[in-house]
């Protein structure tokens, strides 16, 4: 497991964003990143790619991030995968008040730096139930 890179699935309809996240995260050598720009393909990737952490956009054209998250949670195979919302709907990552609709999922407010994203990923991995 030591040499296995952490698998990150990013589901976001902003292709430029998914590319940059992939570039920045893989640049560290610690992550393998797969990107999906639609909810449906994201769900498929979640099942096939088996990511360690899923980064999920809240608002996408085909289905909402929350819908995607619910379907992931409903799937026994991948239901325990940590999900982090990456969203423009909140102004601050710690702002829980305006993220009420995202239940208890952790949130990263856009714009965010790659470092902030990686910090959050590490927190999620550390607290992941074994």
């Amino acid at each position, binding site marked *: 497991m030591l040499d296995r890179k952490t698998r990150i699935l990013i589901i976001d309809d902003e292709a430029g964003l998914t590319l940059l996240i992939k570039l920045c995260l893989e640049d560290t050598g610690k992550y393998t990143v797969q990107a999906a720009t639609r909810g449906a393909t994201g769900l498929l990737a979640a099942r096939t790619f088996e990511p360690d952490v899923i980064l999920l956009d809240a608002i996408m054209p085909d289905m909402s991030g929350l819908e995607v998250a619910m379907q992931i949670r409903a799937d026994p195979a991948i239901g325990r995968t940590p999900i982090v919302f990456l969203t*423009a709907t909140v102004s601050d990552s*710690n702002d829980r008040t305006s993220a009420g609709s995202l239940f208890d999922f952790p949130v990263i*407010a856009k714009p965010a730096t790659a470092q902030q994203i990686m910090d959050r990923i590490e927190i999620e991995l550390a607290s992941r139930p074994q």
Partner: protein
Amino acid sequence: MQNREQPSTPDETAAAEAGGSLDLAAESTRRDHATATREPANAHLRVLLVEDVTVDAEFIERELRKAAVLFLMRRVENSDDFVRALEEFAPSIVLADYLLPRFGALEALQLLRGKGLDIPFILVTGSQSEEVAVACMKEGADDYILKDRLARLPGAIANALEKKDGERNRRVAIAALARSAQQFQLITDNTHDIICLVDKTGAILYVSPSCRQRLGFTPEDIVQGDMACMFSLGDEAGEAPRGLHEFIRAGALRRTEFRCRHKNGEWRFFESTGRWIVEADGSKSRAVLVWRDITRRKRSESQLRQALRDLKNRESARVAALEDLKSSHAELQSVQFQLIQAEKMESVGRLAAGVAHEVKNPLTVLLMGTEYLRKHLPDGDPELPTVLDEMADAVARANTVILGLLDFSRPGVLELKLEHPHTIVEQALVLVKHDLTRLNVEVVRDFAADVPPLNLDRAKMEQVLVNLFTNAIHAMSDRGTLTLRTRVVTASELGTRGAMHDPAEEAVVVQVADTGTGIPAAKLLRIFDPFFTTKPTGTGTGLGLTVTQRIVDLHGGSIAIENNAGGGVCATIALWRGGRRAG
């Protein structure tokens, strides 16, 4: 038949010069007759003598002359001449012998009285008995003289004239009295006013018949009858009615208004004026009262008052309605304004949320792009990291703007940390560095050393300062000066802005002063209004100062913007050391 007219003698002139001898009554009688005739000798007593004996006539003339009487005399002997003389000669006195052959004193007297002439008639007789004289007196002669006592004649003439004069005066007086009584009757019968004569006790001695028309009572009813409970000095039902006597005693003599019940039960209104009559002895025991019926006037007045009251009521109702309308209008305006504001806010909110979502993704790409590029920079160009820093700054600034827009459209939540105001000022300066450099603005820092750290939302306070700096820079042409001043002051030093605080409470004041164009006084009041901007269309959102004020408010502080005396604008932010106060 003699008809001799005796002219005046020289003696007469002398007598006249001596002042005459007859009294004033005779004089006036004579004058009356003189004016009735054309004869000029108006100073003379005109004597018509009925006498057939010339000697006797001469005796009589002599007696009169002896008495220095100025006279003209005509003598007649028969009735025809007598009647003619009465008309032509217009005697002032007739002297007649009792018995003439064909004409006598009695006949003359009857002729005289038959003509209705009231001329004194004196019988001058010879030897007849006094019975005859008395019979003549009974027929209307004024006196009689016996021929053997002619010396009495002037005195008798004077007496007769005086007596006639007195009688005439009395007749005139009686006629005048009758006329006066008639006039009085006419006046009192035809006046609309009620005229009364009352005595001291208030008893009515006389009341004019007009009371019949005015009150329905006859004068007898009023003078004798009991008119209790009919008079009231009260205008309306204020005063209990009282009896007439009491009423008169109470003040009818003053000019006063009262009401009195008509026999038919209606109240009539009168205006009473009165006056005490000063009797010959100076006492005042009677008074004249005049009561004028003013019922119609009172009714008109009452109607007028009612009309006035109605008018006033309508006027005040109208004023009240107008006030209602005004306040409704003001309320409506206020509600409308609030609705418009809310509508604007909602639009801005929707816009902000939309913009935020659409812009934040590209910003994230840019941010991560600079991050990625920083790690993969080719060596050799020392400027490249700086360029990346600038880009990161720009992204951060763009994000701040978006956050500001979101803050403005949503209830703000502060993320308070203990921050030093100077640090935030410096950070905000960095954010406007580009503009400062481009416009050659000199920055002067006048920082107080004792400024403590405060609980502040760093990003939001930066936003506040960036807004103020940007406004200041835009207001200045090339080479302006931006002065940044910080001080620690007490609430009492802040004046009204510190009024809600303990006078000793400390605040940090941050001032941003420029040397720009200033703000027109008329616009100073509106600068915090949303969507109000002094900048050209497209260059300002009109939200900058609104958001600024909102953020300062959220911090429990205050902001004031005013023109400097020496030109330019000074913005003063006061932040309390204790931070935001509860509530």
